[in-house]
C-alpha cells in the first residue's frame, strides 16, 4: 500500500509565482541585491534598465505607510531623479497585498497643525513620484487601500492581478483620503463614481476597478513582467475616461452633483453624526476644478476631521476591531466543524463556516430543516459571490448529516439546538461518546448557564460557549463564554477558530445574558414601557435612530422576534440578582396570538417584504433618547463590576460589532465618558425618580465616579495590538 504523502504541488511552486523582476532568481543568475540601506524598500534595475522598487516592511504581514517608509521613498526618488531609469515599477513582496493604507497609529493624539505638517511632507514625496520623468507603473495584488492606493495613483499606470482589492476606507474612520487621493482619483476616472466610492468606503474588485479606469490591466502574475515592459514602452492599452472626467469636474456639474451626493449621504450617514462625507463633498464642490488648490485644501480638511469626536471615536473602533482580531489570531489546525441543529442559527453558522473554507457537517433530526438550511446557504452564497465555482465549492463543503456521522471526525462541534437544558444535555452525552480526543464542544446557548449545561460531561475542560448573533454573516461579534472548568487551550482554540472564519471574539463570563443580550434587554423593555405610556412607536424608534442606533428598539424587537424577547427577559429576570424590567402582559398576549414580529409578518409593526410598515414619527420627548440609551450604559457598568467582561474596550467593541451601537460614538462606555460620567449618573437618578426604580444606577458607578477625571480612554495601547 503506498503511504499517502500529501503532494501540494502548487505549494512548492507558489513561491516562484510573485514576479519581482531583478529580485527573482533566473537559471543563469542569482537574485539582485538591493542598491540601498533601506529597511522597508529594495531597489534594483533589471536587464532592460527598468528600476524595480519593492516595498516589504520587516516583521509584519502587511505593508503600511509611516513616516519612515515615506522618508525612505524620498531617498529612493532622489537616487532615481539623479540617474533616471527607463521606467519605474513599484510593487510589494508581501503575500497579503500591495499597501494596506497609512499607519493610523501615527496620527493618534496629534493636533491638526502637526498633522498638516507631516501630511504636507508626505504629499511632497508623492508629488515627486508623480512628476518623475520616466514612466511609472504600480503593480497591485491583494489589498491596496487608502494611502497605498494614493501611492499607486501617483504612478502613470496601474496593473492589477485578479485578487486585487482597491479602495478608500478613510470615510469609515471619519476622514477622507489625505495623501492626494481626493484629487487624483476624481481627475483620473468619472468623478461621480470616484466620489461615490470614497463616500462609501467600499472596496473594488480588480475587474470593477478596470471598468472604472482606476487600473489599466487585470492580469495573472505570469504576465506581469511582459505587461510592465509594454507599459514602460507606452504600448499598454488603457481605458481612461477622458472627456467625461473634465466635463463632470466643471463647476456647473459639481454644483449640481454635490447637492445630489449630500442627499444620498444623509440617508445613510446623517450630517449631524458624520461630518466626513460632507467635508469631502464640500472639498470637491469648491475645489474640484483646481487640482492644486484641492490638494492643499485636502490636507487642511483632513487635519480638521482628524480632531472631530466622530473621527476619534471611529479610529477607536478601528483599534477595537484590531484588538479583537489579534485575540483571534492564534493558531487552530482544525478543518472540520460539526453543527448540531439546523435552525436559523445553526444553519447559518454552518453556512458561514463552509464559506470560509471549513468542511462542515450539519446535523438535525429531520431532513426538512436541513433542506431549508441548504437553501438559505445557497441564497447567501449567491449574494456573496458571482462566481458559480465558489458557490458550488462552498455548498460541496456543507454536508447535511441526518445521522450525526460527522461528530467522529470533527475538530469542533457547535451545538445549536433549542434552549432546553435536558435536550442539550442529551445531545452532549451522545456527542461526547463519539468525539475525537482534543476536539472542542461549544454551545451557542444564549440563556442557559454553562455550569448547568456541563453537568454530566466527562471532559468539561473541552466545553466552551460560542454565542453567535443573527445574522451570522453580517454581525462579526461572537461572545466566547468561559467557565471555571474550561481549559485555556479550549478557549484559545475557540478564539482562533473565530479568526479563521473572520469573526471577532469577545471573551465573557458565564452569567445570564452574558453581555450583549443583557445590555439590550432594558433598551427593548424601556421602549415597550414608553409605548404603553402613549408614545408612538415610530417616535420611539426615531429617538434611538437619531442617537445613531442602526435600528430603533421597537423594530429591533420585531426583528429578533417577540417570543425571543419575552423569553430572554423572563430568563434574565429570574436569574439576575438585580430586577430587570419585565415584559408587559399585552406583549405576552401578542406572542400567544402568534404575532411574533418580522418572521410572522406582524408584531409590533406590520411587516411587508421584509420591511416594517412605519407611519410618520412625531418629535421625540426631550428625555426619550436618554431613557433608551442610558439604561444600556448602566447595564454595561454592572457587567464591568461583575467582571462579566474584562474591560471597557471589550464592552464597547461587543456592543458595536454585535448590535451596531452608534459607532461614531465609540461604544456605550466611550459615549458615557465623553458626555461625562457624573452627568450620566445624575441623569439616571433623575429618570429613576420620574419613571421608576428600574432606572436607578448600578452600585458600580461609585468606583467609576471616584476616578480623577472623565478623560476619554486613549486608543488601546500599541502593545495590545500584537497577537
Amino acid at each position, binding site marked *: 500500500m503506498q503511504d*499517502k504523502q500529501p*503532494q501540494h504541488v502548487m505549494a512548492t511552486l507558489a513561491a516562484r509565482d510573485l514576479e519581482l523582476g531583478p529580485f527573482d532568481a533566473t537559471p543563469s543568475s542569482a537574485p539582485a541585491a538591493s542598491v540601498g540601506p533601506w529597511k522597508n524598500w529594495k531597489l534594483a534595475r533589471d536587464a532592460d534598465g527598468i528600476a524595480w522598487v519593492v516595498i516589504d516592511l520587516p516583521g509584519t504581514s502587511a505593508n503600511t505607510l509611516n513616516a519612515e517608509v515615506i522618508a525612505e521613498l524620498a531617498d529612493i526618488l532622489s537616487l532615481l531623479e539623479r540617474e533616471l531609469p527607463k521606467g519605474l515599477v513599484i510593487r510589494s513582496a508581501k503575500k497579503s497585498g500591495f499597501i494596506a493604507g497609512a499607519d493610523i497609529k501615527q496620527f493618534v493624539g496629534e493636533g491638526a497643525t502637526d498633522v498638516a505638517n507631516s501630511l504636507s511632507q508626505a504629499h511632497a514625496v508623492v508629488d515627486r513620484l508623480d512628476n518623475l520623468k520616466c514612466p511609472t507603473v504600480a503593480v497591485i495584488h491583494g489589498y491596496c487601500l487608502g494611502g497605498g492606493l494614493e501611492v499607486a495613483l501617483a504612478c502613470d499606470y496601474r496593473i492589477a492581478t485578479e485578487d486585487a482589492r482597491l479602495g478608500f476606507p478613510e470615510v469609515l474612520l471619519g476622514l477622507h483620503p489625505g495623501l492626494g487621493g481626493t484629487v487624483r482619483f476624481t481627475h483620473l476616472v468619472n468623478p461621480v463614481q470616484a466620489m461615490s466610492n470614497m463616500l462609501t468606503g467600499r472596496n473594488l474588485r480588480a475587474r470593477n476597478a478596470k471598468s472604472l479606469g482606476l487600473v489599466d490591466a487585470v492580469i495573472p502574475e505570469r504576465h506581469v513582467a511582459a505587461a510592465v515592459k509594454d507599459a514602460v514602452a507606452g504600448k499598454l492599452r488603457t481605458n481612461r475616461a477622458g472627456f467625461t472626467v473634465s466635463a463632470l469636474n466643471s463647476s456647473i456639474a459639481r454644483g449640481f452633483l454635490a447637492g445630489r451626493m449630500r442627499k444620498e449621504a444623509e440617508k445613510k450617514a446623517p450630517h449631524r453624526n458624520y461630518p466626513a462625507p460632507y467635508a469631502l463633498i464640500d472639498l470637491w464642490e469648491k475645489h474640484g476644478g483646481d487640482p492644486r488648490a484641492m490638494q492643499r485644501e485636502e490636507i487642511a480638511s483632513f487635519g480638521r476631521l482628524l480632531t472631530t469626536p466622530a473621527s476619534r471615536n471611529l479610529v477607536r473602533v478601528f483599534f477595537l476591531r484590531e484588538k479583537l482580531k489579534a485575540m483571534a489570531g492564534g493558531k487552530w489546525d482544525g478543518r472540520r466543524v460539526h453543527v448540531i441543529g439546523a435552525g436559523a442559527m445553526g444553519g447559518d453558522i454552518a453556512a458561514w463556516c463552509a464559506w470560509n473554507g471549513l468542511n462542515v457537517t450539519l446535523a438535525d433530526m429531520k431532513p426538512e430543516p436541513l433542506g431549508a438550511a441548504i437553501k438559505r446557504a445557497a441564497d447567501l452564497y449567491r449574494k456573496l459571490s458571482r462566481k458559480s465555482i465558489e458557490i458550488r465549492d462552498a455548498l460541496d463543503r456543507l454536508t447535511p448529516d441526518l445521522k450525526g456521522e460527522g461528530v467522529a471526525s470533527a475538530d469542533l462541534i457547535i451545538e445549536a439546538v433549542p434552549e432546553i437544558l435536558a435536550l442539550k444535555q442529551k445531545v452532549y452525552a451522545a456527542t461526547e461518546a463519539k468525539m475525537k480526543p482534543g476536539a472542542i464542544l461549544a454551545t451557542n446557548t444564549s440563556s442557559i448557564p454553562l455550569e448547568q449545561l456541563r453537568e454530566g460531561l466527562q471532559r468539561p475542560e473541552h466545553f466552551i460557549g460560542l454565542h453567535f448573533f443573527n445574522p451570522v454573516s453580517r454581525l462579526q461579534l461572537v461572545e466566547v463564554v468561559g467557565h471555571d472548568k474550561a481549559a485555556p487551550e479550549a478557549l484559545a482554540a475557540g478564539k482562533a477558530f473565530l479568526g479563521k472564519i473572520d469573526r471577532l471574539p469577545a471573551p465573557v463570563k458565564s452569567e445570564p445574558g452574558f453581555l450583549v443580550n443583557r445590555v439590550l434587554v432594558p433598551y427593548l423593555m424601556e421602549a415597550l414601557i414608553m409605548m404603553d405610556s402613549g408614545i408612538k412607536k415610530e417616535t420611539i424608534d426615531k429617538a434611538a435612530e437619531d442617537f445613531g442606533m442602526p435600528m430603533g428598539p421597537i423594530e429591533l424587537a420585531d426583528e429578533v422576534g417577540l417570543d425571543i424577547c419575552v423569553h430572554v427577559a423572563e430568563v434574565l429576570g429570574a436569574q439576575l440578582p438585580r430586577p430587570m424590567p419585565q415584559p408587559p402582559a399585552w406583549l405576552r398576549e401578542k406572542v400567544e396570538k402568534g404575532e411574533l414580529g418580522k418572521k410572522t409578518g406582524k408584531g409590533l409593526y406590520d411587516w411587508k417584504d421584509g420591511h416594517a410598515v412605519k407611519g410618520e414619527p412625531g418629535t421625540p420627548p426631550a428625555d426619550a433618547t436618554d431613557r433608551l440609551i442610558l439604561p444600556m450604559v448602566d447595564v454595561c457598568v454592572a457587567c464591568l463590576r461583575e467582571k462579566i467582561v474584562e474591560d471597557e474596550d471589550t464592552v464597547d467593541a461587543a456592543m458595536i460589532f454585535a448590535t451596531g451601537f452608534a459607532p461614531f460614538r465609540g461604544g456605550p462606555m466611550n459615549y458615557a465618558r465623553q458626555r461625562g460620567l457624573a452627568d450620566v449618573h445624575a441623569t439616571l437618578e433623575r429618570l429613576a425618580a420620574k419613571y421608576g426604580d428600574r432606572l436607578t444606577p448600578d452600585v458600580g458607578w461609585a468606583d467609576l465616579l471616584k476616578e480623577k477625571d472623565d478623560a476619554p480612554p486613549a486608543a488601546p495601547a500599541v502593545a495590545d495590538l500584537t497577537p
Partner: protein
Amino acid sequence: MNRPVYIVDGARTPFLKARGVGPFTPVDLAVQCGRPLLLRQPFAPDAFDQVILGCVNVMSDEMNPARIAALRLGMGEAMVGFTVQINCGSGMQSIDTGYQYIREGKSDLILAGGAEALSHAPLIYNRQAVQFYGNVFMARTLMARLKAFASVRPAMFKPVIGLERGLTDPVVELGMGQTAEIVAHVFGISRREADEYAAESQRRLANAQKEKYFDGELEPMFARNGKVYDFDDGVRPDTTADSLAKLKPAFERPWGKVTPGNSSQITDGASWVILASDEAVEKYKLTPKAVIRDSQWSALDPAVMGLGPALCSSELLKRNDMGLADIDLWEINEAFAAQVLGCVAALKDEKFSREVLHRDTPLGEIDRGRLNIDGGAIGLGHPVGASGNRIVLHLVNALKRLGKKRGIASQCVGGGQGGAMLIEAM
C-alpha cells in the same frame, strides 16, 4: 497474486425519474451520495488509491467525471480517477476494474461507482446544422459570412434527440426495446406475463420502501432550492397487471409486448461501493460486508442483447462449479420485464443451454422468490451508468439482511453484452 477483494460499504442516491431537466448533474449525484459514504468511514477521504466511475452520458462541463467527483469529494489533489463506459454495464465495470487492481496487488482501497443523469441528455444539432455553423464562424469576410448564412435550411433545425440515438444499436439498427421484443418472441413471453412481472416488481419496491430496507443504502439528496429527495420516486405502488394491460406498446405498435409500464424508466441516479484488500481491512479495522468471488463479461448478437445475463451467469456458475441451488439471491437488472423473463427462460431452455451455453443439461428455473426481491429498474429506473453498481450494492445489503450467503448480480448491456458478479456475504 490473487488477493481477496472485499466490499466494505456503499451508498446510492435516490433514483429520480426524469421529468424535465433534473437538478443534479452526474457529478452532483456522485457527490451527494459520496459525501455521507466517505463521512462514515474510519479513514480519511484521501486514503483511497483511486476512484473509478461508470458514466455513459458524460456532460461536456464534467469531462472525466470520476476525477471531478474525487476532487469535489475532497479526496485530495493526488487522487487518480478515471471513468469507464460499457453502456449499461458501466457501474459494474468500475467494480470489476477495481477488483482486478486490488487482486493483483496494485491497490488496496478503491472507490468504485456509477452515475448517470439521463434527464440531462442533450438535444444535438444534426450534422447539417453543425456544418452550417462551422461555415458561418470560419468565414473571413462579410460577404463570405452572408453567403454562409444564406445556406440555412429548415431541416437544420430538427434536433437529434441524444437519448433516442443512444438507445438505438447502430450495428443492427434496433432500439433497446425492440431487442426485448425479439427476446419475448423467441422465448414465448406473453404481454400478460411481462405485465404481471412488472406489477410484482413495483409491489416489491413499494414494500421495500415501506419496510425501510434501503436505510443505510440510500442517502437523501439536498438541492439548492431547499428540496429534499429521500426516496426512489419512480415507484407506482398501485400498479396491477390489469392497469398495465391498458398501456400501448412503446416501441412497436400496435402489436408489441413491451410498454412503458413493463420497461425500466429514464432516470437520474448514482451509486458507490468501497473495495478493500486484506491489508486495508486490517490497517483501518474495517468490517467487510462481502467478498467478490468472481466476475464475467460475455458478448452476443446485439439483436438479443437482453440475454446477456444468461451467458455470463452461466459461465460464472460453471467456473465455480455451482448450480442454481447454490445462489441464494439474484439481481438481474430489469431493463425490460420481457428481457428478465427471457433470461429466466433461456437458463431452463434445453436447446439454448446445449448450443449457446454449452451445457448438457439446463441449469433450471431461477426461483422468483430469489430474484429481484426488492424490485428493480422497472420501479426504480435505469440510470444507465449507475445500475450495474446499484445491483451489486443492493445484493450485498439484501444478503446481509436475510442472513444469506451467495448471490449473483448481472445486467444486459446495449450492444450485445452482459456482465455478472458472484458475491459472497461475510
